[in-house]
């Protein structure tokens, strides 16, 4: 007899496995298979081409990707760690406010962030031109572009990873450890290097690897800023645009291999025993800054940092008020109005992308919400053979760069397949919501799993003992308890899906183009104002959803990030 528990497990697993196999595993395999084909015949030729003389460009792109990522880690750490140390260890006027500002880069979708940087510091950017005019220079003193541009944007958008891990690690260090070291006669400097820093290391290593992976996958920054400079994620896009799907597949495989090896390294590192402290919630102990000069320096530093951090947001807001034609060849915008936002409601062409984005993001979010609940529940509360394998499948979309996820879907669904009910999905509306769904599965599963693991099995048993059937228990006991985790994962999925660019650019069609694609189009037409207005709409949507989540469901955005 197959007992009732086993039957339930199997019923739960069927949809989970079908979806993961159909939309994660099968597309990945399709890409690998494609990478071994040339003109439809099996061969290793693509890999030969990649590493061979014939296309030095590919190898160069790989190398560039790696070294940009390494530099990104370096610069992000250089900004994030000291900032976290200062904000968490010293008390000075405005500290709380500045530390809230410090994570602001995270609310800018990547494409929008890059665009703001271009407006600010690019060749025609406001800052270089303002300096030029101010000092009567014949040429702009500096401008970002190519590698410097990419690195600057990466440092700006990725330092929060270091900032947040360092902050939380610092807050979790038991103050008595450092006090013990002082008590034993160590100097301040020695205490930092011998006690504090070693305790921070595990978190820093994790942040480094994360930043490395994110930069390897980074698409928007090179897309807008690279110029002639080649990186691998962008090469994939070019190969696809040129119709060389086989090479795109090969490049995808190689990018994935690099990313996944770093992920595996990270897992291995984290699984090693580290010496994080069990004692928690001691709270930070901050030194009051008494020296008035030092106090002044710190406050000034805080203000300058705040300006630099918020300048992109402010620029975006101001430029969104520039109507079409008022800032093309001119140094500064010449007129301001609410034209761009008015058009949104009047011109269906302008409104369409917003509607598309909303619909597709909501579809994907509903998908990850339901799928996340079921999958996490199966993974945490049910026992079955092959659990580890399922766990890995769930995490694959997280480890894969977005461009690769996009390529996988193209190669799997540009022909009929059982998982698309015999249809060709590429070129239809559904391929994009599907891509968002696949991309953000891991976010919801991870945050839900974290909550489920805290939930004791006895709660379900208690409900059952009181006479509740499985489904009633699931609905009235399990779901309410895990809801905060599910919601914060879904919130994060929403935030990212609204701004998602790499998969959008690979998979959009004219009729389902989302906001990000329209931003790209407006930029191409030098309609900076409308592009900025779209950027503001993305930021606005994100802000509204975060506010609702916080207000009505008590989900704090910091927890999700």
């Amino acid at each position, binding site marked *: 007899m197959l007992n009732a528990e086993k039957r339930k497990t199997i019923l739960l697993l069927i949809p989970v496995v079908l979806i993961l196999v159909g939309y994660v595993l099968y597309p990945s395999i399709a890409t690998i298979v494609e990478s071994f084909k040339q003109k439809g015949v099996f061969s290793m030729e693509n890999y030969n081409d990649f590493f061979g003389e014939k296309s030095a460009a590919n190898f160069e792109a790989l190398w560039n990707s790696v070294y940009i990522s390494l530099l990104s880690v370096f610069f992000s750490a250089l900004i994030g760690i000291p900032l976290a140390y200062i904000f968490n260890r010293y008390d000075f006027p405005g500290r709380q406010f500045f530390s809230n500002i410090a994570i602001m880069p995270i609310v800018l979708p990547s494409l929008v962030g890059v665009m703001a940087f271009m407006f600010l510091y690019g060749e025609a950017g406001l800052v270089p031109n303002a300096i030029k005019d101010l000092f009567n220079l014949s040429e702009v003193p500096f401008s970002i572009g190519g590698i410097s541009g990419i690195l600057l944007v990466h440092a700006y958008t990725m330092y929060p990873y270091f900032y947040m891990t360092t902050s939380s690690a610092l807050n979790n260090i038991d103050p008595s450890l450092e006090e013990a070291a002082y008590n034993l006669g160590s100097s301040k400097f020695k205490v930092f290097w011998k006690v504090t820093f070693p305790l921070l290391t595990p978190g820093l290593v994790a942040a480094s690897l994360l930043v490395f992976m994110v930069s390897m996958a980074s698409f928007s920054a090179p897309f807008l800023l690279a110029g002639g400079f080649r990186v691998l994620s962008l090469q994939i896009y070019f190969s696809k645009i040129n119709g060389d799907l086989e090479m795109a597949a090969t490049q995808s495989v190689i990018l994935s291999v690099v990313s996944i090896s770093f992920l595996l390294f990270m897992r291995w590192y984290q699984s090693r025993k580290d010496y994080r402290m069990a004692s928690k919630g001691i709270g930070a102990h901050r030194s009051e800054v008494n020296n008035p000069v030092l106090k002044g320096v710190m406050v000034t530093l805080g203000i300058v940092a705040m300006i630099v951090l918020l300048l992109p947001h402010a620029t975006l807001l101001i430029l969104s008020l520039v109507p079409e034609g008022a800032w093309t060849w001119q140094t500064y915008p010449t007129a301001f109005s609410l034209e761009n936002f008015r058009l949104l409601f009047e011109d269906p062409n302008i409104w369409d992308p917003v509607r598309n984005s909303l619909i597709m993001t909501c579809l994907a979010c509903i998908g990850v919400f339901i799928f996340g609940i079921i999958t996490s529940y199966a993974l945490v509360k049910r026992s079955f053979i092959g659990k580890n394998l399922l766990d890995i499948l769930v995490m694959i979309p997280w480890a894969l760069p977005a461009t690769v996820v996009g390529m996988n879907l193209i190669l799997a669904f540009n022909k009929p397949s059982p998982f698309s009910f015999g249809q060709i999905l590429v070129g239809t509306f559904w391929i994009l919501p599907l891509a968002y769904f696949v991309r953000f599965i891991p976010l919801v599963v991870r945050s839900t799993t974290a909550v489920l693991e805290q939930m*004791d099995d*006895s709660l379900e048993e208690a409900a059952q003992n009181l006479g509740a059937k499985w489904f009633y228990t699931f609905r009235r006991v399990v779901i309410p*308890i895990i809801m905060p985790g599910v919601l914060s994962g879904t919130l994060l999925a929403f935030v990212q899906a609204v701004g998602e660019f790499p998969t959008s650019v690979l998979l959009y069609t004219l009729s389902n183009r989302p906001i990000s694609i329209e931003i790209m189009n407006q930029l191409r037409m030098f309609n900076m104002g409308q592009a900025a207005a779209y950027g503001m709409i993305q930021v606005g949507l994100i802000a509204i959803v975060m506010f609702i989540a916080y207000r009505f469901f008590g989900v704090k955005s910091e927890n999700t990030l």
Partner: protein
Amino acid sequence: MSTVNLSEITKQFGNVTAVKGLDLVIKEGEFFTFLGPSGCGKTTTLRMIAGFYFPTKGKVKFNERDMTSVSPEKRNTGMVFQNYALFPHMTVFENVAFGLKVRKINKTEVKRRVEDVLKKVRLEQFIDRQVSQLSGGQQQRVALARALVIEPDILLLDEPLSNLDARLRDEMRTEILRLQREYGITTIYVTHDQVEALTMSDRIAVFNLGECQQVGTPTEIYNKPVNDFVAEFIGETNLLPVEREKQEGEIFTFSSKDLEQTVHVAHTELNIADYNDTDDLYMSIRPEAVEISETPIQAENVFSGTVTLVQFTGESVHTFVKINESVTIKTTALNRGPSTYFKEGTQVYAYLPENHIRVIPEAKGDK
């Protein structure tokens, strides 16, 4: 209300046998305790009664109904979990009402019954509290109320007091017993604490290594243990290996290598347990049965020794008497003032009365 009938129950987890061939009948309205060291299979047995595990072999019956493979939600048992398992997102009222709502009882009736049971556990003023705002003892009471309100046939409690501090534990012991008597529910209580078991139970089943060693009333278990495990686990005892020598009328004599002397034991059912000829035998005597004095005692079973340690616990005094290199006998006497305490190093005589010694076989199974 139900009787519970376990016949030949065995439960295996992989190659671990958690419960072996268990036969038990628990009577209607009885307060029945599973007592044993941790890991001996008490929880596993309880969970088979609740339906969370299905036995590998054997049958579970409530009254005459075979429940062996009935799922938990259809058994109408009320379980109190060790960690209480209160639903954290619900108030006290909602927690207690959960089982009633599942049974589709109408709102006014639910309200009446919840208020009723909360009054019984003395929590009526906390009815709208979130459960996280209650103290440990109060949470315990909510868990009890939640189990009682559905009028279960059987109340199951798995070490319900182990998370409470000593004083609260005493209080809850009386409380649970009061409620059980009031409702008259058949109750199965799991504990590793012998004091709890002895003070609360109508009958006790002593477990070790997945097997039930003995079933009996508290006094039977304490006074007439069937083997060395039960004697040693319940209360304190002095245990020495002995061999049978001969019978002289109403007295048996046993020889003890360690004492280098024979021991005389009365030939009654109270003093000699059932055993087979092949069993290894032990003599057991409770510390409170041993008499000591500084002057020689004229009787059998008198051993001379030295006082090595005197422990004062308040109500009683433990005196350890070293007979020889391998035997030290523990004795206990009620505290009768400082003049009666022995000094360490004093030469004394210890008398083991022949009608207080119990000869028992070694427990079967691996040891």
